[in-house]
């Protein structure tokens, strides 16, 4: 596919930015290989959007360097950076048709009309919007507007595609559909993507690489599996999915709820402990149990069995987990 953006590698070196006394970016370093889908994941105020806008050039920074394809883009004005940006509210130009919106970036690059037209067609085809080309943004649904924003960003063949919580405004079903679509597009186009979200499932689903951010710092960088299975600390462990911290012997063991086994199923585990049932809730694919052990609450997601269904709050039971399922968390 000719739209394939030959994405460039991004390298962020020791970036600092402060608003008065507060540190918005605190010694942020991050290497994103060309063609990588990298997600900045964090709660609001963690600095993820600031980092994205700094890469885009919409925000200044105090110290550090941002290299795109090995070139420092610090002194390059926004309009010369060759970035594709998808905004949370899409920021489609309301007075221009879908086609005019998508053509805008190409016109800025003074491409010949013929080429503008063919590339716009190609981009619209990619996101399946050719029948809507003459409509105004307000005549489109949220999901369609989203795709226009994507086409407008991709058509310029950006060095980097930046996306700021692009699915935040959509309802859950549509969000999932577009996630699948995004993944397909990324596979087809191969652009370098920097994606901002606070939704951990979205991050796990989409990313090649996730950078978890907190208080302006990058806490951990890695593949989704590496982050989920080997979180560096409690913050990452709880931010990416649920996590139990089970007091056992002298230490505390971190275990994901789906790795906890209850009742008969716990037999044979390396770790087995008694607990009291606090609540039993049916959630379709299984049961969600809350167990109480020495004032510590343990969450377990277990398969639907008659044994579990028969459990009553207040009953004594046992739970257990395999030694291999204990997360190794570096202590800070």
């Amino acid at each position: 596919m000719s739209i394939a953006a030959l994405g460039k590698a991004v390298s962020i070196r020791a970036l600092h930015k402060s608003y008065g006394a507060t540190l918005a970016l605190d010694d942020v370093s991050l290497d994103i290989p060309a063609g990588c889908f990298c997600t900045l994941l964090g709660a609001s105020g963690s600095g993820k959007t600031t980092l994205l806008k700094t890469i885009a050039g919409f925000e200044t920074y105090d110290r550090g360097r941002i290299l795109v394809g090995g070139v420092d883009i610090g002194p390059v004005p926004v309009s010369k950076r060759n970035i594709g940006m998808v905004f949370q509210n899409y920021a489609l130009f309301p007075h221009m048709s879908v086609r005019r919106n998508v053509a805008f970036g190409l016109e800025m690059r003074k491409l010949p009309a013929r080429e503008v037209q063919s590339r716009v067609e190609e981009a619209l085809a990619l996101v399946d919007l050719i029948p809507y080309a003459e409509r105004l943004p307000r005549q489109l649904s949220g999901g369609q507007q989203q795709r226009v924003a994507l086409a407008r960003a991709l058509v310029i063949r950006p060095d980097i595609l930046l996306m700021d919580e692009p699915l935040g405004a959509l309802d859950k079903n549509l969000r999932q559909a577009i996630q699948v679509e995004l993944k397909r597009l990324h596979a087809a186009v191969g652009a370098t993507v920097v994606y901002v979200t606070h939704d951990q499932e979205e991050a796990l689903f989409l990313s090649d690489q996730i950078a978890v951010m907190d208080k302006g710092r990058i806490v951990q960088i890695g593949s989704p599996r590496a982050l989920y299975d080997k979180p560096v600390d409690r913050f990452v462990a709880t931010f990416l999915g649920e996590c139990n911290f089970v007091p056992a012997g002298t230490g505390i063991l971190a275990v994901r709820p789906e790795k906890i086994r209850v009742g008969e199923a716990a037999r044979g585990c390396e770790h087995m402990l008694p607990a009291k049932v606090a609540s039993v809730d049916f959630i379709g694919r299984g049961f969600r149990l809350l167990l109480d052990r020495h004032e510590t609450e343990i969450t377990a997601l277990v398969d639907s069995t008659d044994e579990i269904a028969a459990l009553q709050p207040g009953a004594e039971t046992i739970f257990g987990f395999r030694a291999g399922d204990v997360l190794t968390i570096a202590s800070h």
Partner: protein
Amino acid sequence: MTAQAPAAALAGRSNPAGVGRGFPVWLGLAPFGLVLLVLFAVPVLSLLKLAFGESGFSLAQFERMAAVPVYRSVLLTTLGIAGLVTALAVIASYPLAYVMATVGPRARGLLMLLVLLPFWTSALVRTTAWIILLQGNGVVNTMLMGAGLTASPIAFVYNLSGVLIGMTHVLMPFVVLPLYAAFRNLELSTVQAAESLGAGPLTVFRRIILPLTAPGVVAGAMIVFMNAIGFYLTPALMGGPGQAMIAQMIASNINTELNWPFAAALATVLLVATVTMLVLFQRFFGLERLIDGGGGKVGQPFTVTSRGRSTGGWLAIVAAGLIGAFLIAPIVIVFPMSLGSSPFLAFPPESYSLVWYENFFSTSKWVTALTRSLQIAALVVTISVVLGTLAALGVSRMRPRWRNMVETIFILPMIVPVIILAVGLYYLLAPTGLVGSIWGVTLGHVVLATPYVFITVRAALKSFDDNLELAALGLGASWATMFRRVMLPAIAPGIAAGAIFAFITSFDDVIIALFLTNIRSRTLPKLMYEGVAHEIDPTIIAASCLIILVTVVVLGANLLVAKRKTS
């Protein structure tokens, strides 16, 4: 495609050029700031200086003001008339705003038009129309005598009632609009709750509606009072000697007594009173209120209950009908009268013709004045659109810290009574020779009109999504290209509305023209004023109708554009 960054890329601070906000704040603020400094601050301050003694500080002028009974009584009259007008405006606004909030959209649109039309009709035209209606041999008296209700004409004008009628008529919208918004924001359920708890209509009004609408009313009342104390035209033309207000006293001290220091002292008092009101208003309501007129979200609109209107509701409708008629009467009456053929004013005219329009267009002094007015208005629109748009862009890019202060300064010319600006500019410009040319009056109008452009464009910029700018820059547009292709189309309706307000401000102005033009450079409103102050002849009525027509055409064009935009 990436522009190659210089090899010696800065390792330290990133280049602010990379942040591409491309439009420097100073470039926006400086032009209008400079105009305000030279054409507003300097004249007003030189008046203050004159008031406090040119050589050494002295309160002599103010002592004289306090000592001489005539001046004391003018000050009291000013406050008294302003207070009465404020009270009348509030009382008349309640039924009207209530009905506006509870009728269907079509009737509401009509009522809104009734409220806004006088607001946008030249003060001089309105005043002229009222005099025609109310004078001894005027329309109202002719009807009353014809019906045998009175044997001799009742004196409606050239006394207190004339002033109150004229001023309430034009100032009412300042209360009606916020009050209407307050009624719209009222939740029907609060009224229903009160009724379910046993409250009758009067109690509901006193305990629920009055307290909930009070903030809007007080805000509107303060604006009415603030405007009323500086009124010049209406009391001068519709009042008698007993209704002389402070603005007239300023003018007569300049024109007839040639006592500049005392005029300056009176202007100082008026300025201090206005600024005090403004400060109070800002403290209680904030300036945004002054700018948007207190419109708010419309949630669950307040309507009449399903069981229909109570007796009180019907009384309100009758009252609102009468008030609506009061608002529109002078405007509708002038049209048939302008079409009469006799040189004596009569309503309805005995026969119809276009003779007075022919007279208007064949008399060189009228045609010259009309051409000159249009010429000045065109200049004013051009200059104030540029100044106001730049100022709005600059302010929207400012740090919030100083923004409020700058905004207040930029709208001051709307708030300070025009008479003060007119007198100050006259004092400043008289030695320069600009008074005889169209440039003196043009500059004065620019000062008056630019705040309107500033406000409308600022509002448009507030609703402009900053991300659109970032998106365009991100796609490779320079700031100038972004402005032309993305921002300008988005704020164009705001600029157009500002241009219209600027046009009307210039085209309708009498007070600036009174001081800054002479017989060679006089505008249409000034020529009319000279006629009205002397004796109203039918050509003046034809001129009034022409002014109304121009206003309606301009406003209508704006409505059409706005409508096409939204559909």
